[in-house]
């Protein structure tokens, strides 16, 4: 069971862009991502949308596979800037490391 924490978006704001909620979950970013990783980066962006803080930390290893090639940001039809959101999540993960 994942519980929605409504204020997570506010917490994340100090680490960078707050564009995750513009995403409409089409999965284009997953399709163009050169990494062979299931549902990356959409899964993490979805966790931001619903404020699933713990799920992000559980899956934070995925963040470090990202090559920052920028393809997802280039192709996102909503301009949700997934590449930048992943960077924000990295900062969040580092800041939260071992505080869990």
């Amino acid at each position, binding site marked *: 069971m994942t519980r*929605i924490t409504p204020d997570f978006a506010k917490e994340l704001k100090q680490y960078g862009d707050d564009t995750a909620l513009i995403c*409409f979950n089409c999965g284009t970013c997953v399709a163009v991502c050169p990494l062979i990783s299931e549902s990356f980066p959409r899964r993490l962006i979805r966790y931001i949308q619903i404020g699933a803080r713990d799920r992000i930390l559980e899956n934070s290893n995925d963040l470090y596979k990202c090559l920052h090639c920028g393809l997802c940001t280039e192709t996102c039809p909503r301009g949700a800037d997934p590449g930048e959101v992943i960077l924000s999540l990295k900062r969040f993960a580092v800041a939260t490391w071992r505080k869990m």
Partner: protein
Amino acid sequence: MTDPKEKTEKAESGKSEKIGVYICYCGGNISDHVDVEKVRDEAEKMPGVAVARTNSFMCSDPGQELIIEDLKNGLIDRVVVASCAPSLHETTFRGAIARAGANPYIYDHANIREHVSWVLHGEKATFKAEKLVGAAVGKASLLQELDPIRVDARKHATVIGGGIAGLKAAKVLAERGIDVVLVEKSPYLGGNAARLDTIAPFGEKSAALISELAEDVLARDNITVMTHSKVIGFEGYVGNFDLTVQTTFADAADHEQAAGHYIPTVGVITESATEHIIETGAVILATGFKSYQPRHGEYGFGENSAVVTLPEFIKQMSEVDPSKTELEIGSRKIRSIAMIHCVGSRQIPGIHEEDEDGYLNEYCSRTCCSAILHAANQVKEIFPDTNVYDFYRDIRTYGRGQEELYDQAANNRVVFLRYSAEDSPVVTANDDGSDAPLKVTVKDGLTFNEEVEVAVDLVVLATGMEAASIPELVSMMKLPVGTDKFLQEIHPKLAPVEMAVSGVFLAGTAQAPMTIAEACNGAAAAAVKTASLLSKGHVELDPYVAEVDQNLCQGGGACIEACLADGALEMQDVKTAEGTVKKARVVPALCLGCGACAAVCPSRAIDLKGWSLKQYEAMVDMIVAED
């Protein structure tokens, strides 16, 4: 009109020997599969055929000219065209015959495209085309000149229902010089639209819309508005309907409406109900919809006051003080709202609970996605700190300006969660210790089908539309009703506001769930259709109606029992040498031309004009004839 007896004698006297047959290539559509010239050669040999011709497009001017020339030169007195479906060009060729100065009903049509060349190839196609042309020739040989039935029409229409569609229809009719009676059962004009605040997607005030329309309607001399009124009697036929309208003076419509009668908890009625007969030419049904009322316990509805329907929420939002920093409803702070789509719509057998009649609303109500996203945007734009969670099955913001509502909702940081019908969200009491009273749990399709839960202060159900309950009108006026319980048009595209009952039209959500804009479109269309029907002062009806041979009629009455249209057949007393006897008589304006009476008459005294038994026999003879 000629005396029917004369015509019968003429038909019996012999068959036409001057039939013209015109066969169309349809530019290859037919001739690629049917040997059109062979069909022509065969047609020329058929009994009664004087002329047989072909053309690459019979519907073209040169094609029609062939028919006109032959008629004018006296070569032919009956016409058969073998081409596409009669729904496409029957009227075209009847028109050509009329332009040649002949009676347009001396015509029969053989469909050798849809029924032949589009479904058969080679010899089979040519064979069937010959048979169909033969049948048409057989029928044509017995065709008689007919005159359309002409009935006087009152330049007066009645609109039932004073919602936005009824108001719009009344206004458009009045503008076209038709006198209108608008019958509304409640004391008010405006209907369901009056219960809204701002209207999706552009945000106009419904109060302004309704007021503008209602003021216009009330100010017109040729519109009579009857509120507190309902139609309790319906008689007559197109152009000449008599409606009985009952006007009551008490709100409690289910009670006896006589002066002095005591209605429990209300009081004593001071004025008796009155009844009026409205003489009218056409009726527009604008009886509207009713908002779906969730079952007790459906998403917690009725069990917790924090679960409300969208119409209730719209009303609550219209009373909210926007200058406050937090959304407050009934002095309760609302920090998070769950909105659930498709409540009472798109129900699936085996998944959703049927009502007591075993019925489900399987249709999409079409307006709720836009309406609830409009409400969500309103909340987020006034109170950005209130979290809105939108639980949807599919988003169907389909019209102009509506997809933008969805975009806007995402930009306003509405959180979307997607559920499937078999795993609908579950609303329960919240137990996490926060002051949010409710918890919504869902298997979220957007989060890879993980179970997700959220605590909320309010649950808003996007309830759909159901057909208004008008069983009395339906049975009295014999109105066709669809499987979705809404009133049904003749054809969803080609006759979208017309009903099978001639002279009765449809406006607005009586027909199907639709937006206010669509309801107004439909209402305007129905009004213009009505005006064009009535404005000539008379109505012409197809002459294909039953006809009684008074010499053969035994007065047995089997036809009257079989008749599907009330009043189309009646018994009359006829004086004969043996005294007064009963014989059947047709009221042409009411006859549907279905032939049910002709099928049951033991003495074959009743027949259909233009579709007589003899004509059918001639058709069959031609089909089974050996070469």
